[in-house]
């Protein structure tokens, strides 16, 4: 067994550690800490933050890739042979769902196939019957199983909550519990714990039943929809956050220098972003992805496996999205830098002979932080939704990669069937909706708290 590191894995882990480091730096400044406290004082913000963390957890779980050795017994000294399958921790969690594929469509919790098949029985009579599914238990004990699953979920969430209560400073556990129960804590932990419990219980219920049923049905080739939906989380979240990671440095660097230096620097940067933003977004992405596709087709030697290939394609897509999406933020930052650099404290700093770089670091960037943060969170939900549209247009992620866009795209072709095959579409839309709604609500809260115009 060895770890395999994909490009996007590196990026996502770098981003997580950067975020942690940033949070640590911020936590030393009392004013910033207070702002963040204010953000989380709203129970909606708390609930959406926990939902976002829940999605992030699955992203990270799906961003640790392993490759198992083909043979379990190896003699020492010989090179270890690895089979081609690269799996993530999430795949290991859902290994039963991957293996238990059916023949074709089946509805959620169904015990037989979605369509009838023609079979010939022993007497030679042809009949149309619903074939039973291979990997479901047809027993009627679903209620008992659900009960135990929900109980387990409750247990796990209680464990998590107790752990959090211990970790938080309060003399007696009971006191703290009472405070949480009455909603008297400074931050709305009651809502937070409720959201957590709800999420964990739903997940555990789905997960435990997925051993006996296809909880969200199966797709055309019999793949488990629940597993696909969870695998898609990584793609959606990655496109949402890594694009920002790509575009932020460019937008900040160019926006600040255009606003601060003026002159020909300003002219060149303005020309750059006017040119880029005048091209319709989807078309620029399409042109970029088409070129990339040709390049990848011409160089098949770059990738060892299909997973690495689709990963590289995802990376390119993120880069292209980053190139097309920095212009808006850059324009905002340029205008704001122009405004800030006219304020007295910058003039004073200049008069004192403070270096340009120090002025940027000490006076400009901190005053741009709210714009950057707001646009990052706002862009996130837009990018998650854009992934689905791009996959539909055919310039999204690799068709072999699990993504909500691909799920919608495949299910769309079956719309004409009677009765409708609705579960793939439904699952993809619901998973997307929860993520985007949480991101939107959270960004609303950040906007109300951080936007200085709302200070009155």
């Amino acid at each position: 067994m060895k770890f395999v590191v994909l490009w996007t894995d590196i990026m996502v882990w770098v981003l997580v550690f950067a975020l942690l480091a940033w949070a640590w730096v911020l936590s030393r400044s009392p004013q910033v800490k207070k702002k963040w406290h204010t953000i989380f004082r709203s129970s909606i913000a708390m609930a959406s933050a926990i939902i976002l963390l829940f999605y992030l957890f699955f992203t990270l779980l799906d961003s640790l890739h392993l490759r198992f050795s083909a043979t379990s017994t190896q003699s020492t000294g010989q090179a270890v042979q690895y089979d081609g399958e690269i799996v993530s921790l999430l795949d290991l969690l859902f290994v039963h769902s991957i293996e238990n594929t059916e023949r074709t469509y089946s509805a959620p919790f169904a015990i037989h196939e979605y369509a009838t098949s023609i079979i010939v029985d022993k007497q030679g009579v042809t009949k149309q019957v619903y074939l039973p599914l291979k990997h479901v238990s047809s027993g009627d004990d679903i209620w008992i199983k659900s009960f135990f699953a929900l109980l387990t979920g409750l247990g796990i969430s209680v464990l998590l909550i107790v752990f959090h209560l211990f970790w938080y400073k309060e003399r007696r556990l009971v006191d703290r519990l009472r405070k949480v129960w009455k909603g008297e804590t400074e931050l709305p932990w009651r809502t937070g714990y409720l959201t957590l419990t709800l999420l964990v219980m739903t997940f555990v219920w789905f997960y435990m039943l997925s051993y006996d049923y296809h909880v969200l049905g199966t797709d055309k080739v019999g793949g488990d929809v629940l597993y696909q939906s969870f695998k898609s989380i990584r793609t959606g979240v990655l496109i949402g956050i890594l694009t920002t990671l790509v575009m932020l440095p460019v937008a900040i660097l160019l926006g600040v220098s255009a606003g601060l230096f003026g002159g020909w620097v300003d002219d060149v940067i303005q020309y750059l972003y006017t040119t880029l933003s005048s091209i319709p977004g989807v078309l620029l992405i399409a042109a970029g992805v088409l070129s990339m596709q040709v390049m990848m087709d011409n160089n098949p030697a770059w990738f060892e496996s299909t997973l690495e290939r689709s990963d590289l394609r995802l990376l390119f897509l993120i880069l292209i999205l980053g190139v097309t999406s920095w212009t808006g933020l850059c324009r905002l930052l340029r205008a704001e830098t122009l405004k800030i650099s006219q304020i007295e404290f910058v003039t004073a700093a200049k008069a004192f002979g403070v270096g340009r770089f120090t002025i940027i670091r000490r006076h400009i960037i901190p005053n741009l932080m709210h714009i950057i943060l707001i646009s990052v969170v706002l862009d996130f939900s837009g990018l998650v939704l854009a992934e689905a549209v791009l996959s539909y247009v055919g310039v999204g992620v690799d068709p072999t990669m699990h993504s909500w866009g691909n799920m919608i795209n495949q299910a769309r072709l079956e719309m004409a069937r009677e009765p409708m095959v609705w579960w793939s579409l439904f699952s993809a839309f619901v998973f997307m909706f929860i993520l985007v709604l949480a991101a939107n609500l959270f960004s609303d809260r950040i906007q109300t708290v951080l936007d200085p115009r709302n200070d009155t």
Partner: protein
Amino acid sequence: MFAYIIRRILYAIPILIGVNLITFMLFFMVNTPDDMARAQLGAKQVTPELIASWKEEKGYDKPLFINTEAEGISKITETLFVQESAKLFSFDFGFSDSNRDIGSDIKERMFPSLAIALPTFMIALITNISLALLLVLFRGSVLDTSMMVIAVMIMSVSGLFYIIAGQVLFSKMWHWVPISGYESGWEGIKFIVLPVIIGVFAGMGSGVRWYRSIFLEQINQDYVRTARAKGLSELKVLFGHVLRNGMLPILTGVVVIIPSLFMGSLIMESFFGIPGLGSYTIDAINSQDFAIVKAMVFLGSVLYIVGLILTDISYTLFDPRVKLS
């Protein structure tokens, strides 16, 4: 005014050259003229001579950026880049891979696109502004807060969902309108209704929120307080003062997209089978027809720049303080 417009148009030229450069580089980074010749001539019996003659016939035998063999100014003009750009600037889009004239295709497909995009745009503008005004009138009430929650929810659903749900409900289950298709003239209205309704609804969430925030920003201004102090009714304040002063930020966001309506909506048109420019683009992307994509990129940029100029002009009409110079 006239001089200003001329100058803006001149200013647009370097931007369009930049756009061309980007698409040109994206294209020739991966495609050599040899590849194109091979693809055009088919895989069989491609000899180097055939490729050379094809390149000469189509003008692809020139170097990409700098022609070292030529003299003087033609060192730069006798190149593929200049030659291709010049064609685009004269709106000669050339031929697609399936040997159709792209220019006439665009002319033909523009009107179905407009038939969808224009009503969607107009209806969305009117409903969003009226809804936003209504919410501002009742700001802070239950109606306002609940509508805002609904608006966030509408925003959070993928646009594809509205289309699919609309088609299933209105066409498949209730048979009110045909599921897809297009016809010109009044007969075609039954094909247009559903895409327009879906388009308006899908954009409602973000639209209403945006207009509402613009109006709310105005309503705290001093002149609004003065107007109220004069004894004007809240409705008169809203329509006479808030709406008029809110026009400026609205114009910034709205006028710029009007010319781009010609481009149509990619998703809408391909789901509803409307033969407009949007579905044209999607088909081109799917069949990897780069000539069409390039033409659409150029057209889109031109329309966007026209939109920017129109925005500036509309400022002078609505805000007497703005003088173009």
